[in-house]
């Protein structure tokens, strides 16, 4: 709980990669420069690989386009989406760092209520380096934050918390609404700054958004597969949520925490709601089945690594969601391909994803 004397952001300089999917350009990085420049970037270029994406001067990065993905993964490249920001998860797979922060290229630095620029990366790091409290809800939110603590009645035996696997940030300005809501409320902007970080309780699911997200790759990386979306697929805009539901079931099983709330970024671009509606259309019906599926999903105690949990989930997806639509049979297979590819690219990671509690700090 004690704050380190050196700012946490500098402590993770060599332990964190920033993964950015892009199809346009990376101009947005100029605004983030003061906060991102010390870090290594992994750019995943979606769309036409013959196009050159210009990275602003001074950033240390590696860039992968579709040709690179095909070359590196061979036939397994089929699990990586094309023409959808879901391709970003390729970046998670090739990273060699302990932590990942991912952000969309239309997300900018937000200001807090005092007018100060928000260092979103620093807040994510703080969230990941402090424990989560999924077993009992603290009414004053994250007790490890400066100025907060556990409330009366919170059992002392639960106050050590568990390692934090994921830090889910939020967005000011354009909120992350689905297409129907966007159509009904095209002018609604999120102006409410909620000064809280909280642990999503064990057993509770939420719709994870990939726009402003950080995670402990060593803990939960293999579960962060963003699914089959985009070109040739019947669905889009469900990539991050799919990963989030799988991830949460696995975190709940393995005893890790997921935080949501701060930091905020400024989301500048509202995507076209009619385009979104076409992409989401099937999802709006399917999510009625998906939520009960994930809420009821249990993993056997023999599943002690993330990969084992994930493969078990893929079996359940095939068995129970296959009848919702044949897409889920394809997705289940892609989940298996993802794990195979992950293990190939991260050979020693198989036995490191274990259950020791200390790894979160």
């Amino acid at each position, binding site marked *: 709980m004690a704050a380190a004397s050196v700012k946490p952001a500098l402590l993770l300089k060599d332990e964190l990669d920033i993964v950015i999917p892009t199809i346009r350009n990376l101009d947005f990085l100029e605004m983030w420069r003061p906060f991102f420049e010390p870090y290594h970037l992994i750019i995943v270029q979606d769309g036409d690989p013959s196009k050159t994406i210009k990275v602003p001067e001074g950033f240390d990065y590696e860039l992968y386009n579709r040709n690179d993905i095909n070359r590196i993964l061979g036939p397994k490249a089929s699990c990586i989406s094309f023409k959808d920001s879901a391709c970003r998860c390729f970046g998670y797979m090739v990273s060699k760092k302990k932590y990942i922060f991912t952000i969309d290229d239309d997300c900018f630095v937000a200001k807090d209520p005092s007018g100060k620029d928000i260092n979103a990366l620093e807040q994510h790091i703080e969230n990941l380096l402090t424990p989560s409290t999924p077993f009992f809800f603290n009414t004053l939110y994250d007790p490890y934050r400066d100025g907060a603590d556990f409330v009366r*009645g919170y059992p002392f035996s639960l106050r050590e918390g568990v390692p934090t696997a994921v830090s889910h940030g939020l967005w000011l300005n354009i909120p992350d609404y689905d297409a129907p809501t966007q159509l009904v409320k095209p002018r609604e902007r999120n102006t409410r700054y909620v000064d809280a970080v909280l642990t999503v309780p064990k057993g509770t699911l939420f719709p994870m958004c990939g726009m402003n997200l950080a995670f402990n790759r060593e803990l939960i990386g293999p579960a962060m597969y963003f699914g089959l979306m985009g070109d040739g697929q019947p669905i889009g805009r469900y990539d991050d949520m799919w990963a989030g539901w799988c991830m949460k079931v696995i975190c709940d099983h393995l005893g890790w925490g997921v935080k949501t709330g701060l930091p905020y970024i400024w989301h500048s671009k509202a995507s076209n709601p009619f385009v979104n509606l076409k992409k989401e259309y099937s999802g709006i019906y399917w999510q009625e089945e998906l939520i009960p599926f994930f809420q009821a999903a249990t993993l056997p105690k023999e599943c002690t690594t993330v990969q084992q949990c994930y493969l078990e989930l893929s079996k359940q997806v095939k068995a129970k969601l296959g009848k919702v639509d044949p897409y889920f049979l394809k997705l289940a297979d892609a989940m298996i391909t993802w794990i195979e590819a992950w293990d190939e690219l991260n050979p020693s990671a198989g036995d490191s994803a274990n259950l020791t509690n200390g790894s979160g700090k």
Partner: protein
Amino acid sequence: MSQTNIGDDEVDIVIGALHADLTSFLNEWRPLFSRFHLIIVKDPDLKEELKIPEGFNLHVYTKSDIDRVVGLSSTAINFSGYSCRYFGYLVSRKKYIFSVDDDCIPAKDNKGLSVDAVDQHITNLATPATPFFFNTLYDPFCKGADFVRGYPFSLRSGVTCALSCGLWLNLADHDAPTQALKPGHRNSRYVDAVLTVPAGALMPVSGVNIAFNRELAGPALFPGLRLAAEGKLRWETVEDIWCGLCVKVICDHLGHGVKTGLPYVWRNDRGNAIESLKKEWEGVKLMEEVVPFFQSVRLSQAAVTTEDCMLEIVALVKERLAALDPVFARAAQAMADWIKLWKAVGSGSGSGSSPSNG
């Protein structure tokens, strides 16, 4: 379901008077309280006469009322100290109740504006709760917010909110060890959110600043767990934590919601945490048993009312906790007596004979 309209005449404000002089307390709250009916319940242990300023529409209940209503029906039920307010819940005939400790005053929000805690609680109770899936933008029924992408449409109408738990600026509701370790620590963070506590997630409900739907939560809001050395400071009690857990388990079972967050009240400095430490270890130790117990409670399909659920919890307390500490056996007895009392005296709202005012 959509927003309910809650009229002022459907609300009782119940204050447990642990201090005799309520003049400054009520004057501070006057702008927010004056249009409501108040029930003041005097701590039966308090010897001095209550001092109450003019201009309120209120009923006062004292020890003699409590003795008359409860009479010989129970030796296990004890309304002294913080528990006195529950007598007010029993005799109220309104559908909604707001309760705040008598050492709290209205707070100011981030913009320096006075917070209307009563109004915010009423809004929380009037709008649906969403316990079955977590909305990352918090309360979707708040102006300027909505459900996020990925929130199933079938879950967007929500369920009735049975309990609204507010928070505290200045002296937060920490336990004695925590406050003693950080004597200068004061809560200055105003978190501008209301959220539904998800189904299946338990939390410590603080009685300092709450509001509830009396029909749904009333029978379960009872201070069953009374510490042997319970005192007149919140640090020396866990009764609200106990009944809050009952309410949450029951709400989860019956499909009602519990909200937490806004509104804030300003809690005045009071008491000495280090002194209270001597008494509060008991509460701290008991929580280690209490929380796992409630996490394991499963209610039967046959339990379809709050009263039914409470009786099942009573049986489980007797079965699993009573042997661990006599305080649990007493709690079970008190809870069982309370349900009988509630059925005899407490149930029903609107017009009906109520005990005469003190």
